């Protein structure tokens, strides 16, 4: 009984907690190896087979999802199309520079589609825009914390002396 008591007491030391947590998590992950795992192929926003678009020399590969900029929406398979009125428009949009680049070369699809417009922007800013709010808020908060600590302690030594 006293041994249990001591074990319980030791769990109250902060330094042990991350180790303890990782052991528990490790055990749970081990369970994952015996679980029947399979990817359900009915997913939202499916994408073509890897390398398919680039092998067909599509200048917008690997993010080409059809559509005409500012005219016709691209193809997206979102969860609730009824809630995003202009669904697909962002996907098909190309900025003028991007159009220029796409006419020049076939190997810059990634850059073209990560400049404003494109599928990822559609997901990140439109259909799942709220996620991005949080994401950048997390970054901002981490930065606030880190700079506060840095400015008030780790960096401000000269004046204090």
């Amino acid at each position: 009984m006293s041994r249990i008591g001591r074990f319980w007491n030791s769990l109250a030391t902060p330094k042990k907690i991350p180790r303890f947590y990782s052991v528990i998590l490790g055990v749970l992950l081990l369970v994952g190896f015996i679980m029947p795992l399979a990817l359900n192929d009915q997913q939202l926003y499916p994408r073509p087979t890897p390398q398919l678009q680039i092998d067909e020399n599509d200048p917008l590969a690997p993010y080409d999802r059809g559509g005409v900029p500012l005219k016709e929406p691209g193809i997206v398979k979102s969860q609730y199309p009824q809630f995003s009125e202009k669904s697909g428009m962002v996907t098909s949009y190309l900025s003028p520079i991007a159009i220029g680049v796409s006419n020049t070369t076939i190997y810059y699809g990634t850059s073209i589609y990560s400049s404003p417009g494109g599928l990822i922007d559609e997901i990140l800013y439109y259909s799942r825009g709220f996620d991005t709010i949080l994401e950048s808020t997390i970054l901002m908060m981490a930065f606030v914390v880190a700079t506060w600590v840095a400015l008030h302690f780790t960096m401000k030594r000269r004046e204090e002396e």
Partner: protein
Amino acid sequence: MLNIYIWFYTGVVLAILGSIGTAIGPGVKDPLVRALNTEIAAVGVSLIFLTYNHTIALVTYIAATTIITMILLRAIVRLEEVGAEL
């Protein structure tokens, strides 16, 4: 198609090798060595991204890895300077 498998399995090998190296590789008692070894796993993860054509994520990841490396190295240097016994 073969290429995809080569990328993927190279990525897998690198990720696992890198994490083993980070965990128990030679000389990992030195945090600098450990931080360097994480780069291998990072390249492995990048290759897995490449396999799935997550190229935008890949670019971001490459940039973020650099920033993370810098943050970690700064911590290592700073702690070494202070002479911290952890």
